[in-house]
């Protein structure tokens, strides 16, 4: 056996997926041990992904042909600058899982812990597989692993309307999955191939066909649903707000991004096959701009802090989609960096909000007045996250939004540039409102006055993430430099 780094790419999705099957076995002896086991697996996955990212920067993209069959005859996984998204994915899971150890004690019945941890690993493996594969049918399967685990994670706490929220999520998600499967079938019938780049090359070589356009449109609609772009966002607020907070962090920060990764795949497919996407790009920009404003606007009226964060995700997806639709270097770079930045910020905010809810048992702004004085560290982390999501320099949210804005103005889309500014203004209003409640109002609830900071297994990840919001903001240029070559490639294909 000769070790090669490209073979290690195969292990990146396989490790968490195979480990997920072991979780119930570990949990049979001790439910708590399952949490430790899951943490170790996420840590190993993150370490592998980081090692691969270092190889990627040094030597260029790593490709693995599974079973040794070259594309298009076999399945190909690519660890390129887009696939490197797996590294932050695994790292965020490695922070969310220890947070969940103690959080679950109060919110999820003990006999469901094994299922919870297994679902987390399945979700991670699916997300990694989705971002690495360039095989269309494989993409569909990875998406199903992510979707099924996400639906179940929403319902895992099993309280109140969780089952209904999960059902709503499942129904819309299934429509989206069916559209992807339909599109893959169309493309296979047209080209006889499943490898994304082979399909694109064969489409480019054949006569333009309405079926190919329909396939791309189906894929685009399907991924827009997964990304919860306005007006197809209706499943998101309930699902993200009702789920246990570690799950909300994963769903809102990471899982919606499969819609974005999917849209990038559609852009690659369209670019390489020479199918014009003008109408599609226009639509993306329009819906993105509307989502920015509507998501932020609706967030202002939420009293429940998790619902507020959920609406903010809709707004931020708007930023990313607007950036992709503009299809100019600044905007696309900004959008792809914002995929990472928003993940970081939203995981921070949901975990901080989860800490507050866990320690006080309260979740509305009205009840949480004055909580900043009793939970100073957690609320400081929340404040830092809030500054980042508004996009105040020097935090993580600034540089990506700035680049999307620059892109809008440089493309001559001034109206969209202003939509972006208005969105930021609304976001500013609702976070000022939150900070005002936390710090400058007198506590009205006994629980708030009696609250103490959460245990270190919860506080540690929150503080680390909040610090990252600041540090990433200071060194945002590195992320831009990392993603720029990929953006260049993407836009060059689309321009041809």
């Amino acid at each position, binding site marked *: *056996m*000769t070790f*090669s780094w490209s*073979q290690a790419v*195969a*292990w990146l999705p*396989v490790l968490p*997926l*195979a480990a*997920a*099957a072991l979780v*119930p076995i570990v949990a*049979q002896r*001790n*439910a708590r041990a399952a949490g430790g086991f899951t943490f170790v697996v996420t840590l190993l996955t993150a370490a592998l992904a980081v090692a691969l990212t270092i190889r990627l920067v040094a030597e260029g993209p790593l490709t*693995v042909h*599974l*079973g*040794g*069959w070259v594309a*298009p*005859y*076999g*399945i190909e996984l690519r660890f390129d600058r887009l696939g490197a998204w797996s590294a932050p994915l695994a790292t965020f899971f490695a922070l969310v899982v220890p947070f969940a150890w103690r959080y679950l004690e109060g919110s999820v*019945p*003990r*006999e*469901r*812990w*094994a299922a919870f941890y297994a*679902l987390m690993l*399945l979700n991670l*493996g699916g997300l990694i597989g989705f971002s690495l594969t360039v095989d269309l*049918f*494989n993409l569909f*399967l990875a998406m*199903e*692993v992510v979707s*099924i*685990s996400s639906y*179940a994670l929403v*319902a*895992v706490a*099993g*309280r109140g309307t969780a*089952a209904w929220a999960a059902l709503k999520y499942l129904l819309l998600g299934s429509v989206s999955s069916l559209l992807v499967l*339909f599109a893959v079938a*169309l493309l*296979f*019938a*047209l*080209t*006889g*191939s*499943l490898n994304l780049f082979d399909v694109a090359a*064969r489409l480019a070589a054949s006569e333009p*066909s*309405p*079926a190919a356009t*329909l396939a791309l449109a189906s894929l685009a609609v399907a991924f827009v649903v997964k990304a919860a772009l306005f007006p197809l966002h209706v499943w998101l607020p309930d699902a993200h707000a009702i789920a246990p907070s570690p799950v909300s962090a994963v769903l809102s920060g990471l899982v919606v991004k499969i819609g974005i990764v999917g849209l990038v795949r559609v852009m690659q497919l369209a670019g390489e096959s020479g199918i014009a996407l003008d109408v599609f790009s226009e639509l993306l920009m329009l819906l993105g701009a509307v989502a920015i404003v509507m998501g932020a606007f609706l967030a202002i009226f939420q009293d429940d802090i998790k619902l507020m964060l959920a609406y903010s995700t809709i707004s931020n997806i708007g930023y990313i989609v607007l950036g992709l639709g503009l299809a100019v270097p600044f905007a696309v770079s900004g959008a792809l960096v914002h995929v990472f930045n928003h993940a970081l910020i939203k995981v921070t905010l949901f975990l901080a909000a989860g800490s507050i809810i866990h320690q006080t048992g309260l979740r509305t702004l009205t009840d949480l007045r004055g909580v900043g004085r009793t939970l100073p560290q957690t609320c400081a982390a929340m404040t830092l996250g809030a500054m980042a999501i508004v996009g105040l320099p020097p935090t993580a949210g600034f540089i990506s939004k700035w680049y999307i804005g620059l892109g809008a103005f440089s493309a001559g889309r001034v109206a969209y540039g202003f939509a972006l500014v208005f969105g930021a203004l609304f976001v500013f209003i609702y976070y000022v409102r939150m900070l005002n409640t936390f710090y400058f109002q007198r506590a009205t609830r006994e629980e708030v006055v009696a609250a103490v900071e959460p245990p270190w297994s919860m506080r540690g990840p929150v503080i680390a993430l909040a610090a990252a919001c600041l540090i990433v903001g200071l060194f945002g240029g590195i992320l831009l430099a990392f993603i720029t070559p990929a953006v260049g490639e993407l836009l060059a294909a689309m321009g041809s």
Partner: protein
Amino acid sequence: MRWLGLALVVVAAATLMLGVADLPPHGAPDAPVHTHVGARYLERGVAETGMRNLVTAVLLVYRGFDTFLEVVVIFSALVAVVALPRGRAARPDDGDDRPPAASLTAEGPAQQLVSVSPVVAFVVQLLGPFIAVFALASLYRGHVSPGGGFQSAAIFGALFIAIALVQGRERAALLVPRGARVWLQALGPLSFALIGTVGWILTGAFLGYPADAAAYALREAMVVAVEVGIAVGGAVILAQLFMAMEG
């Protein structure tokens, strides 16, 4: 609102049908599905994979990673059902960590949900062993002749459900020992991870199978191991999904 929905459905359906109408005619010999990747599988599949059945060659060798993810999807379905709140009031906690849905030893009266005629009960009893043998044959010969792990899992699962309906759940649950359940349900993903690693050691590629004639027995053993994982894992998952339905 209802008319709007109807209009949307009609427009969407018309669009999808127009798209499908543009595809190459069904079964046309010069359609891309028959001339590109598929043609190469037919031409060289047997020689370059060493498999005697081309379906197995595609399922396990060329696109083995897809099959791995399919097995993971089936496992996810079980975990998802286990994670869901129970439809009825949960049973009092019996003190261990196992999820109630994974527990096959449901107690209490009214286990016999349907009153089964003695004729049906007798036929199930009579045919049970034959069905089991058929499932085994489908498993063992599946990579050569029609059949395979998934089919075998479906037959075993159906047999389990038939026995549970006729003999009651407790009797059926004895077929899948409680302690072994968590191991057996994991066999699908685990067998792929294990055999994939063996393939990596032997061929240098994850999920690779040695293709030369000399490695015939080894290759055969690897394929059967994966098929057993799919069949046993799938059957145990089907059985548990059935038992999770308390209604």
